Structures are given as structure tokens and as C-alpha cells.
């Protein structure tokens, strides 16, 4: 898929972006497609090293394209056909969402895919959070050896886990378990969680392993 001839390696990097297939708009799309929260124009401007007005213009153009209107330089015959997604400006940033009028389809998909039981990955992540709270996603991820972002999200959606505070050092959000969790496992408080030391001698010294990456 990559255009091997693309002169991406050009010296004086500011020019290179426009030479890549898709150019500035493509770069913005690439970012917005994988960002899981709104991205501000200021941040885009910073990362892409382009003036904020230029970024803003590109965003509005993209928004119009997704809504079915094409740029003046590429006229399309026929009625405007919107894409299944849209670019919305919310909470001071931009984010791609499913188009609203497809929300029932999206709901069908989400409901169909969601098992009424927690996956093994979700249970294990929940266990780590329960015993290590308050704990950041990065730390849980280090303990489990895999990325846990979507699993933590599921647990938050399920109301079993909640964002407690920010890590004083890194500023990363830290998670803990909820009252609903306690209710499900039949406990009055987190302190009543069975000790896990008997299962594992020397657990106390485990702290140092947590932060290692594997």
C-alpha cells in the first residue's frame, strides 16, 4: 500500500508532509482515525508543524467531505453521499464518530458483540485493579504483559471499575473498583478481599516487578 516513491525523506521536513499521498488532510485523518478522544487544533498544529489556521481549514474541509460534499477541485456528479462517519467538533477538540442516523445499526452491532459474561482478559484485569488499586492502566498493562485499554474501558462501562484520581507522579488516571463490584463478589468493602499472600509466598516484594516492562 505504501507508495515507495513518496519523497518522505526530503530534507527540510516542513515540505515533506504535502508530498505524501493524502497530504496534510491525510495526516489529520490518520490521527483522528486512531485517536480515542477529541484532538485539539492546537495539538494538531504542534505535531504537524503547520499554522493553526491551515489545520482548521483542513478540518472543515474533511468535515464537509465526510458529509458528502467534495472540494471545488474535484467535482462529483450526482447527489452528495455522506460517509458512515462524521467529524464533530466537541469539547474543544475534533473526533470522528459513527454518523448519527446509523446509531441503531451501531447499537445492534455493539449489543450483538457484547457477551453478558466478562472475558478472561477482563476478569484478570479486574483482579489486578482490585488488588492494586489505585492503579494506572500502564501499570496494569505492565503486570499483565498486554495492552489493557479496551478491557479497562469495558470494565468502566460495566460499572465495575472507576477512575479514582490522577497519579501524583505521572498524572495518569488511576482506577479502582466500585460498590457494584463489591456487591457482585459479595463483600462489604475492599478490605474484605481474601488475602492472596497464602497463594503466593513473598508477594510483598512484588512491587518491583510491576514496573518492569516485558
Amino acid at each position, binding site marked *: 500500500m505504501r507508495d515507495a516513491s513518496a519523497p518522505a525523506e526530503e530534507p527540510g521536513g516542513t515540505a515533506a508532509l504535502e508530498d505524501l499521498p493524502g497530504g496534510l488532510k491525510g495526516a489529520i485523518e490518520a490521527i483522528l482515525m*486512531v485517536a480515542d478522544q477529541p484532538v485539539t487544533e492546537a495539538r494538531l498544529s504542534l505535531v504537524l508543524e503547520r499554522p493553526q489556521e491551515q489545520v482548521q481549514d483542513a478540518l472543515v474541509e474533511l468535515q464537509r467531505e465526510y458529509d458528502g460534499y467534495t472540494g471545488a477541485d474535484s467535482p462529483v456528479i450526482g447527489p452528495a453521499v455522506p460517509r458512515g462517519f462524521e467529524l464533530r467538533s466537541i469539547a474543544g477538540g475534533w473526533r470522528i464518530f459513527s454518523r448519527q442516523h446509523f446509531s441503531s445499526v451501531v447499537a445492534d452491532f455493539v449489543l450483538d458483540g457484547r457477551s453478558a459474561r466478562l472475558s478472561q482478559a477482563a476478569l484478570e484485569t479486574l*483482579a489486578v485493579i482490585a*488488588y492494586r488499586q489505585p492503579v494506572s492502566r500502564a501499570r496494569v498493562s505492565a503486570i499483565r504483559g498486554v495492552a489493557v*485499554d479496551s478491557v479497562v474501558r469495558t470494565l468502566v*462501562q460495566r460499572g465495575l471499575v472507576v477512575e479514582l484520581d490522577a497519579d501524583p507522579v505521572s498524572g495518569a488516571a488511576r482506577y479502582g473498583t466500585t460498590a457494584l463490584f463489591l456487591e457482585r*463478589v*459479595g463483600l462489604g468493602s475492599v478490605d474484605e*478481599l481474601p488475602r*492472596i499472600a497464602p497463594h503466593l509466598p513473598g508477594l510483598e516484594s*512484588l512491587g518491583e516487578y510491576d514496573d518492569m516492562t516485558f
Partner: protein
Amino acid sequence: MAHGSVQDVGKESGGQSGGDLASASDGARAPGPTTAPSVFAVQLTNFSGPFDLLLTLISRRELDVTEIALAEVTDEFIAHIRHLQAVEGQWKLDEASEFLVVAATLLDLKAAKLLPAGTGVVEDEGDIALLEARDLLFARLLQYRAFKEMARELFHRLEEEAERHPRDAPPEPEVLALLPELRWRSTAQDFAALAARVLAPRGEEPAVVETGHLVSAQVSIGEQSAVLAELLQLNGAMTFGQLTRDGSSAAVLVARFLALLDLFRDGSVSFDQAAPLAELRVSWRTDDA
């Protein structure tokens, strides 16, 4: 090229010392400027086993696997594992045996090459066994090389794919709110067991050979040494039969025997045999002896 640390040499790195493939494969492709043909400079590369080492040595000299100049490569291989051993202090048993098996096979082959060529006719069973050993070694080496190629291929694919990022953004909160009722089965106890498993350290498990089914009780050679020393100091010279009279089990018997060898090696006891095939007498050596 000299990428791995000394501690890493020859060890399974367990996936934690990243990205050595590129460097190792570079070494395998082109003989670096550091490899003067006359002097073998030991490279502290993270060799991933004996085949890896052997392949690297072969390709460093730009030789075909199937026609390796055995004498040279064998010497380098031996020199290398000697060096590794010196650096490591000691080997892990399973690693060492793999390296030594390859080294022994190479040595056999080298020896055969050095001997007068003879008539070229396979003469005895020893020759045939040698040919088989050689073919087997080459076959395994070829096979390993193929998988190494594939590993490089996978590496490039992984690297390339890492440049593409999948979309992983949650739906809108309204959609997220649509959740089927959770069916929950875990009790607090289940949960604790799960947590204990997940939180367990994941480093190397010590390689413990389970012997519980073999020996009912552990017998310490050290302890038995002490027992022997006491008996001998008390009674002067004794026969082995006398020394083991109170032995309650075969394990104790064996441990006493080994302890006796230990003591002899240390110069603590001496053996005395009156006539050929006569019973040995063991005596405690005093300093003035």
C-alpha cells in the same frame, strides 16, 4: 554487532532483550570488518543456541553450509564455547549439552578429515555413522537456517505493521449504555485465586527436577560426611561394611559412599588394602600422618 551484554551471551533471553535480530542477521550476511581471517575475535553477540553460533561462524567465512571447512569452523566453535564458559562461570546443563553435542560432532568430522583420505570407499561402520552424523547435523542446520529466515521475515512484518495503527475508539456513551445484563459467576475466593495467578512474578522459574517420587527422604552427603568423620575418629580404621552398618536405607548407603569419596579427595581419609581384592580399610588421616 557486539550488541549483547556479557551476561546475555548464549542465554535464552526470554523475549526481554529486544531487537537483536537485525544485528545478528547483519552479522550472518556480511563478514564484518572485525573478522580478520587469521585472528578469531570473540564477538559478544547474543547467540540463540548452538545452531545460531555455528551458522554465524559459517556465514562469516562465506561458506556454504553443506561444504563447510570443518577444521576452521570447528576450532572457532570450540574457542567460542570455551570463551562463553569462561565468561559465564558455569553453564546451565541443558544449554551446555546442546553446545557440546554440536561441538563433539564437529570435532568428529574434523578428525575424519584430517586422517589420510584412504580409498574414498566407506570402509567400516564408524565411517557410516560419521556420514550419518554429518548429514543429520547439516540437515538440522539447514532447517534452522530456514526458520531463521522466516523469523527475519516475521520481524520485518511486525515492524511494518507497527507503523499502522488500528482504530480503537469507543462508541458514544448512549450506545455504550446499551449493555446486556452481566452474568457474574466469580466469588471472592475465585477472584483471589485469579489475582494470585495474575500477580505472580513471571521471571524464570527455577529449573527444579522433581525427585519426590524417586527418593522418600532427602539424605545429605554433608551430614553423612560428618557421621563418617565421627565414626572414623572414634574407631580408627574401619571397613565400608562397618561404616554403613547402621545405614537405614539405600539412600543413606549411597550418600555414605559418595561422602567417603569426598573425604578421600579432600585428603581426610586414606584407604588401605592388604591384598588384591581384599577388603578396603578406611582410616582417618591425622595431620601428622
